[in-house]
């Protein structure tokens, strides 16, 4: 086959005795988007680094080869390989923030690739950089040439990465989760750009992602990876309509959480009413550091959470949704407004007056790794809340019993109480976080992006657990998320936030199926088609 660009043959990697990749084989043809999908730790990023020969020193290739136009990349010298990198195969990464050199202007960083491979200098180089920056849709490229990465937004940085990758007109672009760190509206635009480039340049792309929605948008052929092996390869149509391997089926099923309609409870009474809440951060400037203005993180937000219900607070990064969560927990000082919880306004209370009420509002976090103190056992982590907020005195034995019950409630083993956080996976840690919150029998739990750091299969399980607990314990959730696909599974009410304000709120039906505000519409339209269709299809 002459149109094969890259072939990976029986690639195996190991570190020490541990096998990381096990006989991975696939080919990429000219002009095609080949997608590697899989959960974290499945080896998809390692595959891409192995193709570029950028693996860390400890990881060794134990067998296999990678050929570019039939020429082995593993047998050439490092110097020859340097001529391949950036010239024939270019790469873009997940985190545009850290992937760019912070002390070099973005224009220079693009120019460096041109200089290295095409020996372009001076005026020609400059013109080419400007041209590239315009091609990837960066406006004012003449000015932005001299900007530093921190002056650009996430999407713009990713565009610079793409410009850099395209600079020497590579045949193959390796894209390692290029849209994962981006907001959904930005993701849509970057995907669109990649699609356009592939048409205009006839570019082949190895696209690595965990997001089935994105795969459906962009890929021609798909390979599923699990524990270092490719378990299924198929064309896009075949893949989505008739997946063969049970794991693939499960992955697809979990990508869109099972929607069993929530019980539409009769109008319960309000548990928390937030009225006109404002959280401002002062901007201090001038000689005496006077406050000259405010960053309005939360600017006049009103919302209501009813007993036993979930309010999903949706918005992009920087919209102020997490700040609301912190303000409700009274961990962030509010400028003005009211927060009436069970008939009591929380805002004017002192820390001492607040303490007995604290047990009613608890929190679970996004990052399961930083949410648990690494130096405490699971048992003691959960015990902390019990001791601090319990109304009656308990013996240690009673507490241990309660901890065991809680762990079982979140589907963990009771003996985990003796262990330390580092022994657990992300999903397990998230469950421990939930158990910690449940320990004080709260009425309201603030869920701050609790599933966004988790793989889809784990995400599905955690969501199921949260729903189950809501039913059992009559909990209310303030569910903060940027992930539109999980809203139908969890939310009774939805509020959409932008720049510190709520632009639209109402029942799930109303907001999702019939959005009124332009921003809500934009948000929903930016979601991958698969998610969009799924949201549209829900029957409430």
């Amino acid at each position, binding site marked *: 086959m002459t149109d094969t660009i890259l072939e990976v043959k029986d690639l195996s990697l190991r570190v020490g005795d541990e096998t990381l990749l096990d006989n991975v084989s696939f080919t990429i043809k000219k002009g095609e988007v080949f997608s590697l999908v899989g959960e974290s730790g499945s080896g998809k990023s390692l595959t891409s680094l192995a193709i*570029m020969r*950028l693996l860390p*020193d400890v990881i060794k290739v134990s067998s296999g080869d990678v050929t570019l136009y039939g020429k082995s990349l593993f047998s050439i010298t*490092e*110097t020859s390989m*340097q*001529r*391949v*990198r*950036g*010239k024939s195969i*270019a*790469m873009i*990464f997940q*985190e545009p923030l*850290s*992937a*760019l*050199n*912070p*002390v*070099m202007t973005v224009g220079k960083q693009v120019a*460096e*690739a041109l200089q*290295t*491979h095409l020996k372009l200098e001076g005026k020609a180089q400059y013109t080419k950089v400007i041209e590239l920056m315009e091609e990837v849709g960066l406006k004012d490229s003449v000015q932005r040439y001299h900007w*530093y990465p*921190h002056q650009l937004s996430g999407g713009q940085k990713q565009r610079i*990465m793409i410009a*850099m990758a395209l600079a020497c007109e590579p045949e193959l672009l390796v894209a390692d989760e290029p849209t994962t760190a981006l907001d959904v509206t930005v993701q849509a635009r970057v995907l669109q750009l990649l699609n356009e480039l592939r048409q205009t340049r006839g570019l082949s792309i190895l696209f690595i992602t965990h997001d089935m929605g994105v795969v459906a948008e962009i890929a021609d052929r798909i390979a599923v990876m699990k524990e270092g092996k490719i378990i299924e390869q198929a064309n896009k149509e075949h893949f989505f309509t008739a997946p063969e391997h049970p794991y693939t089926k499960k992955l697809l099923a979990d990508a869109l959480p099972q929607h069993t309609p929530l019980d539409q409870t009769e109008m319960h009474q309000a548990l928390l009413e937030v009225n006109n809440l404002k959280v401002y951060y002062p901007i201090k*400037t*001038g*000689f005496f550091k006077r406050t000259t203005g405010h960053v309005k993180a939360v600017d006049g937000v009103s919302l209501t959470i009813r007993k036993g219900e979930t309010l999903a607070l949706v918005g992009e990064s920087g919209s102020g949704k997490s700040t609301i969560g912190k303000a409700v927990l009274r961990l962030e000082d509010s400028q003005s407004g009211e927060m009436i919880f069970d008939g009591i306004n929380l805002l004017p209370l002192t820390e001492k007056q607040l303490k007995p009420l604290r047990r009613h509002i608890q929190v679970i976090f996004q990052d399961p790794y930083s949410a648990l103190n690494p130096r405490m056992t699971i048992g003691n982590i959960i015990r902390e809340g019990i001791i601090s907020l319990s109304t009656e005195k308990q013996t240690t034995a009673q507490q241990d019993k309660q901890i065991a019950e809680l762990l079982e409630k979140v589907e963990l083993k009771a003996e985990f109480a003796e262990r330390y956080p580092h022994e657990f996976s992300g999903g397990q840690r998230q469950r421990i976080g939930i158990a910690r919150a449940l320990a004080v029998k709260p009425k309201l739990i603030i869920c701050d992006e609790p599933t966004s750091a988790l793989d889809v299969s784990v995400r599905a399980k955690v969501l199921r657990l949260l729903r189950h607990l809501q039913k059992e314990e009559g909990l209310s959730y303030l569910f903060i998320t940027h992930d539109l696909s999980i809203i139908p599974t969890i939310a009774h009410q939805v509020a959409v936030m932008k720049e510190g304000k709520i632009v639209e709120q109402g029942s799930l039906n109303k907001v999702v199926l019939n959005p009124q505000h332009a921003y809500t519409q934009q948000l929903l339209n930016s979601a991958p088609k698969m998610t969009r269709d799924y949201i549209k299809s829900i029957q409430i």
Partner: protein
Amino acid sequence: MLNYIIRRVLYAIPILIGVNLLTFLLFFMVNSPDDIARSQLGAKQISPQQITAWKVKRGYDKPLFYNAETKEEGVLASLTDTLFVKESLALFIFDFGFSDAGRNIATDIKQRMWPSLQIALPSFIIGLTTNISLALLIVLFRGSVLDTTTMIIAVMIMSISGLFYIIAGQVLFSKLWHWFPISGFESGIGGIKFVILPVLIGVFGGIGSGVRWYRSLFLEQINQDYVRTARAKGLTELRVLFGHVLPNGMLPILTGVVVVLPSLFMGSLIMESFFGIPGLGSYTIDAINAQDFSIVKSMVFLGAVLYIIGLLLTDISYTLFDPRVKLS
């Protein structure tokens, strides 16, 4: 920018007052105005009247911190018309007064600054470049035998007291091989022969800790994502190192380096005294040995001023080299 500098200078004032307070307390704990008068007057038989007269003339008759006599003129006057304020103000205009031997300290400092700099500056520049180059070289060969051996040698070098290097250097290079004069100083080009040995020893003694520190800074950078991007661009390892790792690694190095720059004027106590260099370092050491508090006090103040200038320079250098930092 100017705003920022002015604010920082204003912020330095309370620090310098604190420094003065500390030295003032230490100073007068052992050296009362009477003692100063006695040593200044010099004569063997001094009458109490002479002492009082001297104190009045020099203003040493005022109380230390609170002047009860000027109470009528308000609290401010009582607090300012004191010995502490008088002494501090003198220091603030760099009027250091006279040493026990009756020499003008400010003049001495102006004279002795340059020999100090003649040793300290080359040691600093050569040391910094050697350490950074060695560290980069090791980073280039990281994980190899070269890396491990150099690191072991580095630990050994830093486990030896600097005094040994000086003594061993003098014995080997001067006493046995007669390459350099054992000590002494001359200004101008002819002085180079006196400078080489102390500079060499200074650089060598600092290599151990320097290389280790810089190596760890560079290694921290080399695991960053942007280095991977640079490699993916097809840059050679050398260009990755010099174009990307070095500029980023220099930022944390700046903090440690710029802050000591002004203090180079102070010289090195040990070096100067071993090599007989008439700089501020040996000036200080002589003053300590002679228990001359006036000089020690002046040097403390000077050191603090230079340190604060160093801090300011560090901040400014960050705005120059790190685009992410803006002074405000």
